[in-house]
């Protein structure tokens, strides 16, 4: 076997391993779509659960997840984008700035269940928000923050320095340069980062386990101090905590959650690729 045969064998091996990595992804998505599609109909999406969640719909879980994600967005977007603007436009390379970067990296690595403990300790008990949309959204927002900061900073840094110089040479202040020149240029990248952060928040279970999630609550919430059902927690509940749950309902719930998260994923990818094509610098 000469070295060219070795190369051929090596490349085939690498390709085969990549296939082993990718096939299960298709299997997961495919099997959930195939087995779940039969359960998803108008009633499933718009009705309250009945018969101990074995029948009816999952409306409160869908609404709960949307509300938690909205709450997360309201808190995490201003702080995250603001932090990114600071790191990219204002911060000099000092030990304090490096500490911020370390903090962001560290926040990104904290286990989701530890965020749950943090939310329970700070928002639910110490600030006495109770198990509520508010406490859950705040917990998810802190978890989402590092994703938004790092992607938004990357997008801001990609804007060439000349753009800022030209703005300053025309008599613009630093903030005017950022507000009217840099931010609009970086916007698609920032939005992509925000979507990626929010889809992570929408799919998480552990952080809301003790801060927001209700086991079974067949009504829509009245205020931000109400607990809610949420899609990921609901899937956990019906697949592990309720005996005799029809598989159809479980797969249906998984499909709705997967569709929500993956469509956000596709949206982020679409914005990114469209932006790359249109960019003139």
């Amino acid at each position, binding site marked *: 076997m000469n*070295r060219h045969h*070795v*190369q051929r064998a*090596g*490349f085939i091996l*690498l*390709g085969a*391993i*990549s296939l*082993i*990595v990718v096939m299960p*992804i298709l299997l997961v*998505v495919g099997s*959930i779509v195939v087995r779940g599609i039969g359960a998803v109909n108008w009633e499933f999406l718009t009705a309250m659960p009945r018969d101990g969640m074995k029948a009816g719909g999952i409306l409160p879980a869908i609404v709960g997840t949307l509300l938690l994600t909205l709450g997360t967005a309201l808190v995490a977007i201003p*702080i995250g984008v*603001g*932090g990114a*603007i600071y790191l990219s*436009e*204002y911060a000099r390379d000092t030990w304090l700035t490096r500490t*911020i970067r370390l*903090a*962001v*990296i*560290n*926040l*990104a*690595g*904290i*286990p*989701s*269940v*530890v*965020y*749950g*403990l*943090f939310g329970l300790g700070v928002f639910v008990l110490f600030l006495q928000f109770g198990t509520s949309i508010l406490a859950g959204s705040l917990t998810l927002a802190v978890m989402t*923050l590092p994703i938004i900061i*790092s992607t938004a900073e*990357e997008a801001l*840094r*990609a804007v060439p320095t000349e753009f800022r110089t030209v703005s300053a040479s025309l008599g613009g*202040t630093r903030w005017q340069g950022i507000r009217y020149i840099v931010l609009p240029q970086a916007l698609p990248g920032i939005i992509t980062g925000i979507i990626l952060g929010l889809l*992570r928040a929408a*799919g*998480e*279970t*552990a952080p809301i*386990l003790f801060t927001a999630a209700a086991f079974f609550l067949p009504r829509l919430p009245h205020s931000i101090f109400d607990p809610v059902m949420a899609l*990921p*927690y609901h899937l*956990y509940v019906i*697949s*592990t905590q309720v005996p005799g749950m029809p*598989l159809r309902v*479980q797969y249906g719930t*998984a499909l709705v959650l*997967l569709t929500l998260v*993956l469509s956000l*994923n596709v949206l982020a990818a679409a914005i990114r690729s469209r932006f790359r094509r249109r960019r003139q610098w």
Partner: protein
Amino acid sequence: MNRFRWSEFLIESLVRIAGFSSIGFVLLIFIFLLREGLPTFSEVPAENLFGTHWYPTFGLFGSLPLILGSLLVTLTAILIALPLGVATAVFVREVAPTWIRELLKPLIEVLAGIPSVVLGFFGMTFIAPLVREVLGAPTGLTAFTGALVLAYMALPTIVSVAEDALDAVPKAYRDAGLAMGATKWQTIWYVVVPAARSGIVTAVMLGMGRAIGETMAVMMVTGNAARMPLTLDSLFRPVRTMTATIAAEMGEVAQGSTHYHALFGIGIFLFLITFVINLTAAATIFKKRRRGGLR
């Protein structure tokens, strides 16, 4: 004119506060974990705390089975994910034609986006029965099942960081290898991959950080038996991790009880482990920082 400067100052202050908030949140998380978790160490004697039995209802808070459970599942997951991830990164980066790359990368991104509870659900309904049949074990909910699911959850991180590392290897290295008459494969195997070594180590560490902190999927597929995984067949028996213990038990404990404090104590431990892993990984990344190299 004066009002103008005020608005500049105001905005700069707001942006600065947003920037520094990350430090504030890390401190806040650590302080609250300590506040709720430290009492464990005065309430539970050390030999109990590091004992081999976790039965909170009987006042037994031995954390060793949980720590070893997490270690067993995480290390097995990394052993599976490391070769798969690095090989995939090399294939995508060095070998695959463009159209295959454009196909593989979004798929791996999809994997990163799938919620852990969905993967856990898939593991329960699909992989666990498979494991049971193949092994002939009484249950498919084992440490191995957890490791398998975790491996795939760590893969996107490992592939993307390893790819960045390969990307950072200068083109001149490859050219030199090929110019000396080596095949492309020899250049990859003997030049490019060794040159990307430290980045690959970082990839593995970040993947490990991701795996050890993973909660829902692990809780759903490992069977959750808090037993010491010391025998050889432990990998194919149920096991319980630190994260799953917190998630499963926190809902039912009374605030301020010893059990409550002990669960926060596990939280402190998890926080410190991931803190060290991420800091070490960050140090390597900072050292060889490239534009856009940090993900």
